[in-house]
C-alpha cells in the first residue's frame, strides 16, 4: 500500500467514483483495487488515459482538472 495523505486518498476515491459513473460498478471496483497499489501521479495518468480514450480528450481533461482542483 502506497503511503499518502488524506487529500490524495480522496482524490483517488473521487477518480474511482468518476470511473464508476461512466463505466459501472464492476469497472470501478477493478480500478479501485489497482489504484490502492499505485502512487497518486500514476493514478492520475491512468485515469486520464482511460477517460481520454473513452470520453474524448476535452471532457477527460476537464473532469480530471475539476476533481484535482477539489482535492489537490
Amino acid at each position, binding site marked *: 500500500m502506497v503511503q499518502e495523505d488524506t487529500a490524495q486518498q480522496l482524490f483517488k476515491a473521487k477518480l474511482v467514483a468518476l470511473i464508476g459513473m461512466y463505466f459501472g*460498478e464492476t469497472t470501478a471496483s477493478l480500478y479501485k483495487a489497482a489504484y490502492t497499489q499505485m502512487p497518486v501521479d500514476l493514478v492520475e495518468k491512468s485515469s486520464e488515459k*482511460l477517460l481520454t480514450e*473513452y470520453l474524448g480528450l*476535452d471532457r477527460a481533461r476537464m473532469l480530471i482538472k475539476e476533481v484535482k482542483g477539489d482535492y489537490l
Partner: protein
Amino acid sequence: MRLWILLLMVMTAWSYWYAPTAPFAQWWQAAVYVLAPASAVLGGVVAVKQYGIHSAQGRILCALTIGITGWFVGEVLWTYYELIAHIDPYPSLADLFYFSSYGAFAIGLVWELKFLRTQVQRARPHVEWPVLALAAVTLSGLAIYFGVFQAIKPDYSWLENAVAISYGVADIGLVLMGLVITVVTAEMRGGKLAQPWWWFLAGISCIFVADIGFAVFTFEYEQQQWLYKASLDSLWIAGYLAMAYGLGRFAVLVYSAQRNIRPVSRQ
C-alpha cells in the same frame, strides 16, 4: 452481435426485396420484423448488466431499454394482429405500447444530459446551439407537416386520425431525442463512448423517417403495397438494428475498459 445483425439484414433484403412473393415470405418478414427490436432489447439488457443497475449510466441505459421493449411489444402485437388474428392492427393495443416508449426514452435521455452537465460545470464550446436549434425547428416542422397535417385522412375514423396525429406529435419527441443524443456525442467527441450514441442516433433517425413515411402513406402501407411496405419496414428494421448495435457496443466498451486495468491489478 455483428454476425447476428448481418444475418437479419440479409433476411430483410431477401424477404422484402429479393423474394417478397416467395412461399412463407410473409412469415420471414414477420420474423425479422420482430427479431430486430428483440435484438435491440437484448443489446440493452447486456449493456445494463455490464454497467450494473446501480450506476448512473446503467440506469440511463435501463430507461432506454425499457423504451425499446415497449416498441418490441408493439411490434409483436402488430404482427400477431396482422398475420394470425387477421385484424387491422391500426389502430390497436400495439399503438399504446409504441406511445409508452417515448416516455421512457425521454426520461433516459434527460438523465443522460443532466448526468453529463453535472460532471462538467462549464458550458461546452463545441455544441453549436444555433445549428441545433435550426435542425430542431426544421425537423419538427417536417414532423408536424407530414406527421400531423398530412396524416389526417377525411375518410378515416376519428380514432384513426387521433392516433395518426399523436404519432406526429410523438415524432417531434423523436427529433428532440435526436438532438439530445447529438449533444451527448458532441460532449464525448474523440472518445470511444461517443460511437454507441451515434449508432443510437442513426437508429432513431431511421425510425423517424419511417414514421413520417407511414403517416403519409398509411393507406398504401395498410394495403400491403410492396414498395411502401418494404421501404418502411426496412427502415424500421434498420433503426432497431442500429440501436441494437449501439447498445451492444456499450457493453463491449465497458468490458474492454475492465480488461485495460486487469494486467495492472495483478501486479
